[in-house]
């Protein structure tokens, strides 16, 4: 047990850490409720939801609506692909196959490479091949180099603890490989699969470095925000920050609720 002084120091450190972590976000959330005549900085000039309303209007510079829809759609594509591919890869990696070690290192390498360079490389490659870069093609691929290794690592950890006897028991009881996957494997790993989906979604939704040089003419939301920080001079930017944070929390909340309800339903039977 640390002494009184030690405990006090630890408390101070912890409070400082929490402030450091959430302070900036909180500042932006507070400022997004700036009054109609307020500016980008404190003091607050009244309180209003005026800037949230402005989100849905035509902007002088930038276009929230289109970039948000693009980012949401892209995040959905990335999430779906990440879930399917990492689940399949996790199952495949349970046994060694020719080249499995190399494939694994190759996958992890794309996690280690500097993200900006990955983006640059993909952008250049498209350029050399004279294919236009687009958020739904090159940026989609660039984001997968980020989410797939994460998904695979999680799946490897999950299947590491997965009792092979479950599948053998299913086979013993007459399940085909597909049925054993559907009725046994998938329900058991489902919580982790949902976790990977959430992970993939949030990673993609605010991905910046890899998308910057691969998104082509149409911006995703983070790119749009970057563009606007230099030109937009109203708290509408903060309102956007608050709204997208709320969206991320909403997605996580919905997923947790779904998990909780599935569990409750199972226990009620």
């Amino acid at each position, binding site marked *: 047990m640390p002494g009184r002084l030690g405990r006090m120091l630890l408390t101070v450190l912890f409070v400082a850490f929490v402030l450091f972590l959430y302070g900036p976000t909180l500042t932006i959330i507070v400022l997004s409720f700036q009054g109609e005549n307020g500016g980008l900085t404190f003091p607050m000039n009244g309180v209003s939801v005026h800037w949230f309303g402005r989100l849905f209007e035509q902007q002088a510079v930038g276009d929230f609506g289109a970039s948000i829809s693009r980012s949401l759609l892209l995040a959905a594509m990335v999430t779906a692909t990440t879930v399917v591919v990492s689940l399949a890869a996790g199952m495949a990696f349970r046994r060694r196959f020719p080249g499995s070690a190399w494939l694994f290192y190759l996958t992890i390498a794309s996690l280690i490479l500097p993200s900006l360079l990955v983006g640059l490389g993909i952008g250049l490659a498209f350029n050399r091949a004279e294919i236009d870069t687009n958020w739904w093609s090159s940026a989609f691929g660039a984001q997968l180099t980020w989410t797939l290794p994460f998904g695979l690592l999680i799946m490897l950890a999950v299947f590491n603890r997965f009792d092979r*006897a479950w599948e053998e028991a299913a086979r013993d*009881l007459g399940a085909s490989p597909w*049925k054993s996957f559907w009725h046994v494997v998938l329900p058991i790993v489902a919580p982790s699969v949902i976790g990977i989906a959430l992970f993939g979604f949030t990673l993609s939704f605010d991905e910046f470095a890899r998308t910057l040089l691969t998104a082509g003419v149409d911006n995703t939301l983070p790119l749009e925000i970057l563009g606007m920080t230099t030109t937009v001079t109203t708290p509408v930017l903060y309102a956007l920050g608050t709204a997208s944070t709320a969206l991320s929390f909403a997605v996580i909340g919905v997923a947790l609720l779904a998990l909780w309800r599935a569990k409750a339903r199972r226990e009620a039977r």
Partner: protein
Amino acid sequence: MRDVELVAVTKRYGSALAVDGIDLAIPEGSYTCLLGPSGCGKTSTLRMIAGHEMVSEGEILLAGRNVTTLPPAQRGTAMMFQSYALFPHLSARDNVAFGLRMRGVAKAERLRRADEFLDLVHLGPLADRLPAQLSGGQQQRVALARALITEPRVLLLDEPLSALDPFLRAKMREELKRLQRELGISFIHVTHSQEEAMALADLAVVMDHGRIVQAAPPRQIFERPASAFVARFIGGHNVLARGAQAISIRTDRCRLDDGAEGPRHHGHVRAVEYLGAAMRIVVVAEDGTEAEAMLPDSTPPIALGEAATLTWNAADEHALAA
């Protein structure tokens, strides 16, 4: 008719030989224990009968039918796994009903049957529990019911009692024997415990290094062990040398020197264990050979290090194969 017949069955993992050309015939409706130290090939043998491991060479016949290459569910066997392998997301009832669900039995019918089988293992009231909400012994009963609901001709059990505490183990042992008798099917039970094999088996199959060293009823194995390995592994025997010949003598046939005619083992006492109904002493001779004796609990106390001589009737000696 034989329930199971193994013909020169061999299993290799790469260059390692796990099972070395074994032949075995298991009579109809019998309780068989595959017994041996870890790595002796008993589990590989069981898994090959189940179809969860492919045979490298040889053939497996079930009720006269060659099933060597058939998938597990088409063999007429059911397996109970060492870890039980209950599906953690399904209730006890749904776990038991799983086999019927895979066969396309309608929901009402399969749940009714599942409840019947849960009653058979005395778990009816806990049908709605998830595996995590059941004790180890209860989980095992669910696993048993789940395997039996497919109405197998042969039930395969992989170390079924090893995870239970000693009291539960003895109880479950009776229960397994009762079920086997009531259902009239064959049980093949893998264990490393000779006590379990003695208590349960009609046919005990002792294995070592991928081979069967003796397959016989437990009484015969205990009274006439085929080799020094068998005598040592099943316990309750001293293995001693008679010139070039090895002999075994049961420890409960040995007694302290009482002046009667018979072979002798001189030495000093290395261990004394009071076991309640009996007393176990270990006597080490000058040359380091050990022999032990199970003495009646009425034997007067013996001190460690004291000189002692064991004796027995020459007729009780059993000559072992080299």
